[in-house]
């Protein structure tokens, strides 16, 4: 029945995630064996040819990143970014829980290709269960002799700061510094961890690598479907094949929205991603198509909001989240977000002043071009797309002060 490809999550639920024998029996580590006989240049060319893009959300071509490190021709580090802090994203957890060996294989391929010194897995603080398991399995793989000589992988647990998913902040956190982003350039590929070139890739990106080496391509993507749909979870889909509408309603994936209510909007890629509205939901889910519509896939999270959800209150929630998670380094993000939160709060409490919507729009626009790092710029994405497509909802709140009193009963948010 399921015609979908199954590359990244192959073996989920069927094989024991902690058993190397089971993984090898299912075809594991064949890619690693191939790579150990290939030249580094060939490996990188193969990744470039697959066209795989970073799966953490920034969509940077993976092959290019590896090549940049190789060209530096220095000792280097590799880091697997498992700081999955985005609300609504949980695909990395799925990978690390059910097929951790595929991720480790991807990291080892990188280590062989780039002759890296050491590897790190930067694990989200909340994933404590995975931590022990990962440590055990890394030791097992090492004892079985799969590691390049002198190479090791260390698992580092973050303290739960959202900003530490940003690569420079992540580096600072591994170095026991303050989890704050630093200036780019130099990029981590030039000067990263302890001053050496550092390859930072997402968990899913590393999981893609064995498949590419085995010639299976990289045209599948993990999506984390959540929110007001009947069937939630992580699914592997072929890119460019389904639309978001399909994913919500098809029996393979979402099985329709809760209570069959009309979908109001869909949050793509976690809270720093963009919103998608019903009129856009026919667009095929793939990098090219979505870019043309001005929407980013991001990390692959798809959170559905249906029924009586107020988009104004949703925006307030998102901005409050980012106000809390801002690192406080640059004044734009630190103060700007709290100012928007203040204005949105005022709007939601029925105390909106005339011109507040204009004000919010102007402040959001300034933040998106002035913020220091991606957090501040991404924080207002939701607000900007909401204002672009559903401005009238904001204006109603501004004009009608009792709007929320009338509408509040029976609301989800």
């Amino acid at each position, binding site marked *: 029945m399921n015609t979908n490809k199954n590359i990244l999550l192959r073996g989920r639920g069927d094989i024991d995630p902690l058993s190397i024998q089971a993984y090898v029996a299912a075809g594991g580590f064949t890619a690693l064996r191939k790579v150990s006989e290939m030249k580094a240049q060939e490996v990188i060319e193969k990744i470039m040819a697959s066209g795989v893009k970073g799966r953490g959300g920034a969509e940077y071509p993976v092959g290019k990143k590896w090549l940049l490190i190789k060209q530096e021709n220095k000792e280097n580090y590799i880091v697997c970014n498992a700081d999955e802090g985005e609300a609504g994203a949980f695909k990395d957890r799925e990978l690390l829980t059910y097929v951790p060996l595929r991720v480790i294989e991807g990291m080892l391929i990188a280590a062989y290709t780039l002759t890296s010194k050491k590897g790190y897995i930067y694990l989200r603080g909340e994933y404590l269960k995975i931590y022990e398991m990962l440590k055990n399995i890394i030791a097992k793989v090492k004892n079985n002799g799969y590691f390049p000589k002198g190479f090791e992988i260390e698992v580092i647990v973050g303290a739960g700061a959202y900003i530490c998913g940003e690569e420079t902040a992540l580096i600072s956190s591994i170095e026991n510094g303050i989890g704050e982003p630093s200036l780019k350039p130099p990029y981590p590929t030039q000067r990263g961890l302890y001053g050496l070139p550092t390859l930072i890739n997402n968990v899913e990106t590393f999981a893609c690598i064995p498949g590419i080496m085995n010639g299976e391509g990289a045209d599948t993507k993990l999506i984390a479907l959540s929110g007001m749909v009947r069937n939630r979870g992580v699914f592997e889909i072929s890119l460019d094949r389904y639309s978001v509408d399909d994913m919500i309603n098809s029996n393979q994936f979402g099985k329709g929205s809760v209570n069959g209510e009309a979908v109001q909007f869909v949050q793509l890629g976690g809270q720093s991603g963009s919103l998608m509205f019903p009129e856009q939901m026919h667009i095929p889910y793939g990098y090219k198509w979505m870019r043309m519509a001005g929407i980013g896939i991001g990390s692959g999270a798809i959170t559905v909001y249906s029924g009586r959800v107020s988009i104004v209150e949703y925006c307030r929630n998102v901005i409050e989240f980012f106000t809390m*998670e801002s690192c406080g380094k*640059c004044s734009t993000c630190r103060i700007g977000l*709290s100012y928007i939160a203040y204005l949105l709060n005022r709007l939601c409490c029925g105390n909106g002043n005339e011109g507040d919507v204009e004000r919010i729009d*102007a402040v959001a626009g*300034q933040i998106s071009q*002035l913020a220091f790092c991606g957090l501040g710029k991404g924080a207002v994405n939701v607000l900007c797309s909401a204002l672009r497509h559903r401005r009238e909802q904001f204006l109603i709140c501004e004009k009608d002060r009792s709007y929320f009193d009338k509408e509040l009963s029976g609301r989800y948010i």
Partner: protein
Amino acid sequence: MSQQQQIELSIDGTHIKVSVGTTLLNAAKDAGIIIPTLCCIEECDPRAVCRLCVVETNGGSLVTACQTLCAEGMCISTCSKKVKEARRFTLKLLLTRHLNSCFACDRSQECGDRLWALCNYDNNCFTCGHSMDCQLRQYCLEYGVDARDFPILADAKATLHFANVLTYDANRCILCRNCKAVCEKVDGKIALLGRGMNAKLDFSLCDMSFCAGCGKCTEVCPTKALHPFDEKDSGVN
């Protein structure tokens, strides 16, 4: 070798030549154009946290001048409408978290360089005590920022005194971290706690026995939130 290489760029229509590795801020300074900044001090690396020094590139995007290096053929505008608007916005944001009693006077916008001692109006601006050497106030006047555009969102905090060396008024601090940067060169006693809106500077190590007492941190404070201990201040608290 490559350091000697010269590159040419234009700032506000003036063509200038600088050596490779010069920041836009320094290049502009050489050309006699002053770009406002609150967090850039000579002896420390740029941190680009105040976001006030933004300039517009030929692509129309805003970059911070303190950190961006000059590149061949760049065309920079330091006073376009977009730049001015962005700077005004940043100043207003800073004022929402700054106890700006210096703006309490109705006429603060027009007073400019007037000799304040002769001012006939309500002298609210003097409740601050440092309004004369406050860079933030100076820029606000320069850019015509009215503090009343944005509300003040900060709660009042107590002024802290440290072992007769320093006085720190968190109400006026804009968290530019200049003090922390210079202290790192000497002592490294100033710490940073919390994140987001709860981020704050911590001076608890700046006790007599730890602090070298060089006073550099007070010199670089743009709003004089941090200043040498003053007998007069301690009574107010």
